[in-house]
């Protein structure tokens, strides 16, 4: 039998809910309840981790949630029903500061920053005696309220069974959020960020916004859990909540269970926590930690991608690899590419204006006051020797880098300093010299990302697939549609780049070294494609060494050398320019290819 992850989750929750109703408890209610609690905590942590960020500081949100709620209860006597949301709010506020402060941090550096960020609220609370009672702690917090539920009254504060159902409900809610995060448009954006952040920007995913959203959601859930924890304990001190332990456990549970699976983090907690707490301890009063350690080691050695991944591979259900894999619709979508934009004659109105743009890396001036206008509907190729600044220029236009000086206008709008995704939404897309695929997604999904997050954007993956197949057909990747993009050879990746860039719905397309690594046959195909795109009204900018390609398809050439624009004009003019010949082709030109250029 094969269960969908969603069904597996429902079965799991139903099992957890039905267990106490059947009669005897297999393990203590509190332990199982806390296992659910830690499951929810692991899920909350994982929400942020889905964007590729590993936080070592979630206990900050946990602690702030706890204090935010406990202080109101302690000083004003408010019911937890009112104060728990406030606690979550406090956690979210602190998460907001993270979003602003840690925007540029990645990887282990982000991990360290989050680790250190726990100390800030901790030390402040520990020393703000008049408000928080500091290290003395808050004793006698209001218990969780009694909740009338039809004929029943759930005494959450005193009845451990009622408390168990509350914690189980929290787990269910967090799983629901997790499910939404894995399958929704947001989930795809987070997955894109995690797999390749640069590429995510280039298909139009607003990276900061999505990472922040994931963090705020994660912090809110963690804050709620922290607040409830405080009311369950009845007492609160800084070292109870701001602990490395609470930051690290969700990480261990998530990795153990499988990070990209709906049930992974929760399963990790539900398996590991009770075993450690109850089954090992009574037998081995002090040696259980070693047994637990050995268990964890063995589990990771045997299930390197988590228990959920292993269960799924066995076909027993229990997880899924990130968002659901695109359905394998075999049939080719008929029909021509979407309606071309009205074709613009070369020499039309300017669509891209580069005004005095310079770029400096440290002491090196890579581009010097570049002045260049691209007309709507034309194909403009930038030529130049290695290191002349061509790719840098493309990076500046597409928002991957910010210029040191000067301005860039797209359709008359100043886009200088805009992030990549905004420029994509404005109608400019690019390919990358070094292909930037989302390696774990299929080729088809890669293209669908462009459709989902480009302009105008498609709300759901399924809705994007037909057009994605068309684009794959266009670049000749249909047979590879369902391979993971990470397995493609270089040349196919470059074609994928083109398809994905086109998917974002651009009016201007920048092709960065598209022909590098292409054989003569493929160069011909590339040239055909460029002409086709031009006929459809696209404005194109190329950057290529291959004169056989650029000289043939371009309306104009722009020659760069050492960061300076040597000449702009029709191909034969530029190629005949003495400075260009000297810089680019060597002093004396005898290459037949080049002389064959028109």
């Amino acid at each position: 039998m094969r269960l969908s992850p969603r069904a597996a989750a429902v079965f799991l929750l139903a099992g957890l809910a039905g267990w106490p109703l059947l009669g005897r408890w297999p393990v203590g209610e509190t332990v199982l309840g806390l296992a659910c609690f830690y499951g929810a905590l692991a899920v909350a942590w994982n929400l942020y981790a889905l964007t590729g960020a590993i936080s070592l500081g979630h206990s900050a949100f946990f602690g702030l949630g706890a204090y935010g709620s406990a202080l109101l209860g302690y000083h004003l006597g408010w019911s937890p029903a009112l104060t728990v949301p406030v606690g979550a709010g406090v956690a979210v506020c602190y998460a907001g500061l993270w979003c602003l402060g840690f925007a540029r941090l990645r990887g282990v550096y982000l991990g360290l920053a989050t680790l250190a960020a726990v100390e800030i609220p901790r030390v402040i609370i520990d020393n703000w005696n008049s408000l928080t009672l500091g290290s003395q702690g808050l004793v006698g917090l209001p218990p969780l309220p009694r909740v009338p539920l039809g004929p029943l009254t759930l005494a959450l504060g005193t009845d451990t069974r009622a408390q168990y159902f509350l914690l189980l409900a929290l787990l269910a809610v967090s799983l629901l959020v997790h499910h939404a995060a894995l399958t929704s448009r947001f989930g795809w954006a987070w997955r894109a960020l995690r797999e390749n952040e640069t590429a995510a920007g280039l298909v139009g995913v607003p990276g900061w916004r999505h990472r922040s959203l994931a963090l705020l959601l994660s912090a809110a859930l963690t804050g709620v859990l922290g607040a409830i924890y405080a009311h369950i304990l009845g007492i609160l001190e800084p070292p109870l909540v701001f602990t490395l332990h609470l930051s690290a456990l969700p990480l261990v549970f998530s990795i153990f269970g499988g990070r990209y699976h709906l049930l992974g983090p929760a399963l990790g907690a539900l398996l590991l926590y009770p075993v450690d707490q109850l089954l090992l301890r009574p037998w081995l009063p002090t040696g259980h930690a070693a047994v637990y350690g050995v268990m964890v080691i063995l589990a990771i050695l045997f299930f390197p991608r988590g228990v959920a991944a292993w269960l799924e591979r066995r076909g027993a259900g229990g997880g899924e690899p990130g968002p659901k894999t695109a359905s394998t619709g075999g049939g080719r979508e008929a029909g021509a590419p979407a309606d071309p934009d009205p074709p613009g004659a070369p020499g039309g109105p300017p669509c891209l204006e580069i005004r005095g743009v310079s770029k400096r890396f440290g002491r090196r001036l890579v581009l010097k006051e570049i002045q260049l206008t691209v007309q709507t509907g034309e194909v403009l190729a930038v030529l130049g020797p290695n290191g002349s600044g061509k790719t840098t220029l493309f990076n500046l236009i597409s928002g991957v880098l910010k210029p040191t000086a000067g301005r860039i206008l797209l359709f008359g709008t100043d886009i200088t300093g805009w992030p990549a995704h905004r420029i994509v939404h404005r109608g400019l897309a690019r390919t990358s010299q070094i292909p930037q695929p989302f390696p774990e997604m299929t080729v088809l999904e890669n293209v669908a990302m462009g459709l989902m997050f480009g302009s105008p954007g498609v709300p759901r993956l399924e809705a994007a697939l037909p057009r994605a197949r068309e684009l794959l057909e266009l670049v000749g990747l249909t047979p590879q549609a369902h391979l993971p993009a990470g397995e493609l050879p270089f040349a196919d990746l470059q074609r994928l780049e083109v398809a994905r860039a086109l998917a974002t719905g651009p009016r201007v397309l920048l092709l960065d070294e598209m022909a590098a690594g292409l054989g003569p046959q493929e160069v011909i195909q590339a040239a055909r494609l460029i002409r086709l795109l031009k006929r459809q009204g696209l404005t194109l900018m190329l950057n290529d060494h291959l004169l056989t390609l650029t000289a043939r398809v371009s309306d104009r050439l722009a020659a760069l050398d050492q960061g300076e624009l040597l000449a702009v004009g029709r191909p034969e003019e530029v190629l005949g320019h003495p400075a260009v010949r000297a810089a680019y082709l060597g002093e004396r030109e005898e290459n037949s290819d080049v002389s064959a250029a028109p």
Partner: protein
Amino acid sequence: MSVGMHLVVSGFSLGSFYALVALGFALIFGVTHAFNLAHGELIILSGYLAYFLWRGLEVHPLATLPLTVALMPVFALALAQLLKLVREPFPMNSLVVTFGVALVVEQALLSAFSADYRLIQPAAPALMQVPALGLALTETQVTLLVLSLLATGIVHLWLTRTFSGKALRATIQNREAARLVGINLGRMRTSAFAVGGLLIGLAGPLYGQTLYLYPAGGLEATLIAVTLTIFAGVGRIPTLLLGGWLLGLAESWAALALGANWRELVSALLLVLLLILRPEGLKIRTEG
């Protein structure tokens, strides 16, 4: 000795201590990408070995160093063997596996050495005076300063002046290219763990002489190591010592000027601010 001098001496010796604790971790992490959470436990183990040798033979505490330095690579290499079995994604999985190893080692230490706190006493509590500078240093401070400079210096020289060291740096920077020039990655991994073990062997006795040893103490040491390694930028040995000093000075200053209860806030703010301003750690930024 003036207040300023006191501050400088304490800050530098505390920073040197941090750097010594972090060295082995930094080296192993840089080469193998193994996030070794059992690092602190190994340091404590090394400290215990030194402690019992020192107690049993009544030798000078520093005389225990040859033994721990010789023995700890054995443990580090055993860990390397275990980590060989870890499959992708390696950094994450190594983190969880070494978390398990840390639990096992802690439990073993508890069974073997009891939960008692152990101290290694310096041989001569005499202060070393440098009248010209108005300095007075305790033996522990001198030991920390000298050994951290020595260890950092030797490791740095090894990495920059010898072929095996350069090969190790090459491996950190580009594994594929390192393979292609004929570097045996397995051997690099082994030598990283061996030298890392050596440095753990060096740090253990000093840990026992500066702080105290107890089975659960490894977490503190691991935290110091992780913090400093990332703070200084992965794979940079001299900045590790600089980073340690910076942190030590900042903490000492905070404890003096604001009170001991604010020191963690100051070091946390320093870390966060420096990371925000230099997102890749303390390393010197390269162009392009």
